[in-house]
């Protein structure tokens, strides 16, 4: 049935009608505190360490701007995503919010985000890499500013890898070389050489980009065919059958946390992960933990890229856009704030701040910084932020591959399935 368009005002039907009635007898709006002070709500995801540092930075901001009071709040990533979506749908998005690459398209096109381009008086973007900055843009409007960047890596336990005598991962290795070495590590050590990359949309993207293709076309369609995906899954499926990469029983437990990866459980010698989140492996793997660049295509084209690991944006409905922009500017560009924040949100994208921050880093952050500078200048510009359907498709990808690895579908069948679903999703 062709959709007949309802007016925006009947968006949520009775709810709004009734809620208007309720507002009449309801409490007052509490977004602005007493004494003429401006109150900003600022939310992000992260862990308690990031929270402690952020609060310290925010306290500094409040000291500099006595007229602004910032209420902060945070949650773990999954919880945060759900909470923010509910708030946004309820017309109650925070004034300033941290955003993920995958959220940008949806939040921007849904009218949740403020056009930050109009706030250049308060917010400078001069020192941010142009390619990265562009990922926060949609239809020419700057909706979000990248805060930090990350890139994918092969994460491995160098102690166990060396013990096999197989040559270590190196920059510029091809997917075939990767497969050969992983196979060899598995043969000698008796443990899978790597996790199964078949379940990972991220790995597939690197593989695809090496061939000059992409996950999505610039207009938000699917950038590859079922044939491409069939080849990728056949490649992974074959390695798994040989025992070179982890079996289905291990792969199916991967849930985004390092603890549930085969490497984290000591059931594989290497893994694929984003650089900064790999810090979680330290406690699990020990001092052998090492990062190596992702494999490249036969002709040497790298598929990996610097991805903005998180963005910061402002709510379109904020009553204080200027103050919100000022807070964003402070979080992204301020040198003293940067000193407090360090690399808690990843390696900063502001170039002069990155130069200041990197020498002072400690622990795993230095490993990440060194890894990033080792691939600096060799990578292509990041693709634009993925279309809204991507968050669903990421799960679909994993689920469809689960069917392959448990032997319930052939790579071809699963790939056809995926492409059908993706086309419906991106419609």
């Amino acid at each position, binding site marked *: *049935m062709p*959709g*007949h*368009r*309802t*007016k*925006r005002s*009947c*968006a*949520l*039907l*009775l*709810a709004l009608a*009734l809620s208007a009635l*309720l507002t009449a007898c309801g409490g007052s709006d509490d977004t602005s505190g007493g004494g003429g002070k401006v109150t900003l709500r600022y939310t992000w995801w992260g862990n308690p360490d990031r929270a402690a540092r952020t609060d310290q930075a925010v306290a500094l901001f409040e000291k500099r701007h006595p007229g602004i009071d910032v209420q902060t709040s945070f949650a773990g990533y999954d919880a945060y*995503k*759900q909470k923010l*979506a509910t708030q*946004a*749908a309820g017309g109650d998005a925070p004034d300033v919010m941290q955003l993920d690459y995958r959220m940008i398209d*949806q*939040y921007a*096109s*849904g*009218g*949740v985000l403020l056009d930050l381009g109009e706030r250049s008086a308060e917010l400078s973007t001069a020192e941010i890499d142009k390619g990265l900055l562009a990922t926060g843009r949609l239809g020419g409007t700057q909706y979000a500013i990248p805060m930090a960047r990350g890139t994918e890596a092969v994460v491995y336990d160098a102690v166990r890898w060396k013990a096999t005598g197989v040559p270590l991962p190196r920059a510029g290795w091809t997917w075939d070389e990767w497969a050969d070495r992983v196979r060899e590590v598995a043969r000698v050590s008796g443990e899978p050489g790597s996790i199964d990359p078949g379940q990972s949309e991220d790995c597939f993207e690197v593989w695809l980009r090496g061939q000059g293709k992409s996950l999505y076309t610039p207009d938000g369609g699917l950038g590859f065919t079922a044939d491409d995906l069939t080849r990728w899954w056949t490649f992974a499926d074959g390695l798994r059958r040989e025992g070179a990469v982890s079996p*289905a*029983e*291990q792969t*199916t*437990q991967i*849930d*985004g946390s390092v603890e*549930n990866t085969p490497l984290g459980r000591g059931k594989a010698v290497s893994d694929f992960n984003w650089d900064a989140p790999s810090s979680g492996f330290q406690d699990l793997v020990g001092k052998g933990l090492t990062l190596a660049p992702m494999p490249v295509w036969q002709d040497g084209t790298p598929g990996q890229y610097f991805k903005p690991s998180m963005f910061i944006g402002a709510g379109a409905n904020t009553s204080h856009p200027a103050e919100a922009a000022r807070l964003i500017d402070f979080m992204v560009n301020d040198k003293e704030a940067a000193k407090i924040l360090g690399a808690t949100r990843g390696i900063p994208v502001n170039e002069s701040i990155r130069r200041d921050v990197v020498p002072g880093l400690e622990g795993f952050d230095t490993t990440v910084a060194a890894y990033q500078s080792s691939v600096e200048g060799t990578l292509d510009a990041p693709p634009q932020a993925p279309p*809204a*359907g991507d*968050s*669903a498709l990421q*799960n679909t990808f*994993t*689920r469809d591959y*689960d*069917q392959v690895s*448990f032997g*319930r579908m052939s790579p071809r069948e699963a790939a056809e*399935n995926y492409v059908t679903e993706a086309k*419906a*999703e991106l419609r």
Partner: protein
Amino acid sequence: MTTTDIPVTPAREGRGTPPKKRGGRRREGAAWVFLSPWVLGASVLTLLPMAVSLYLSFTDYDMFDPPHWVGLRNYTQMFTEDPRYWRSVGSTLTYVVIAVPLQLAVALAVAVALKSMRRGKAFYRSAFYAPSLLGASMSIALVWRAIFNDGGTVDNLLGTGGWVNRPGWAMLAVALLTVWQFGAPMVIFLAGLQQIPGELYEAAAVDGASRRRQFLSITLPMLSPVVFFNLVLQTIQAFQVFTPAFAVSGGKGGPADSTLFYTLYLYDRGFVASHMGYASAMAWVLLLAIGAVTAVMFRTSRSWVFYADEEGR
């Protein structure tokens, strides 16, 4: 709407005691006083959101853009174009059939055994309830995965291999989690057992009835309203099983979609994929399905549930 077809047993009140007119009217007024909080809550906080979700089920609402009317498209897509939807229906039904009878049987058996104990009642009651205190929290999910993984306690003891990471076995691990947390129905059974007047047993003992006989002819009939309650509610809750799935798959519904329960998939469609219209349609189909099952239960209950406030049975 089929929900209104549910035969309502309490509607048969007043049988044998026809109320006098004046008293009846006064009671009608009194009833609304008793009901007033419920009426307010049910209309504003329940009926209204339900109406909105029913409306949304006919739209393409994606949480960010205003909804557009799409007629029955969500429903036809669900039934004809979504194989994963049918997989979720299959795993949910399997789960309901395994978990509900098992959990209720364990809860009833433990409750009856506890009642007949003279010593240590409080200790056992608390100890058996302890697992239910946790709910299906994140920590219990991690514990469950550790115990039922390959190389975990269960694998070591029974040599079965991992449960949580193999299709087929994973369902059992989820069902066991539910059965393990049988505290809620157990406590309800216990409360029901306490309400049975002791004099009934005394009289039966005088008549020389065996314990088996007492159980069958006193305990079960007197407990039947509570058994019925537990059966209905546990079935409804089992159809909506959500959190225990996190214990096994971290909410993804794996391995190979074997624990992709209905509400888990609904959540996935609604909050991960932002197809809130589609998710709302799924919710209403579930409501109708549970409503039908519950209606059957209410209908059959007339033949086996005994209410003390009814006379002449």
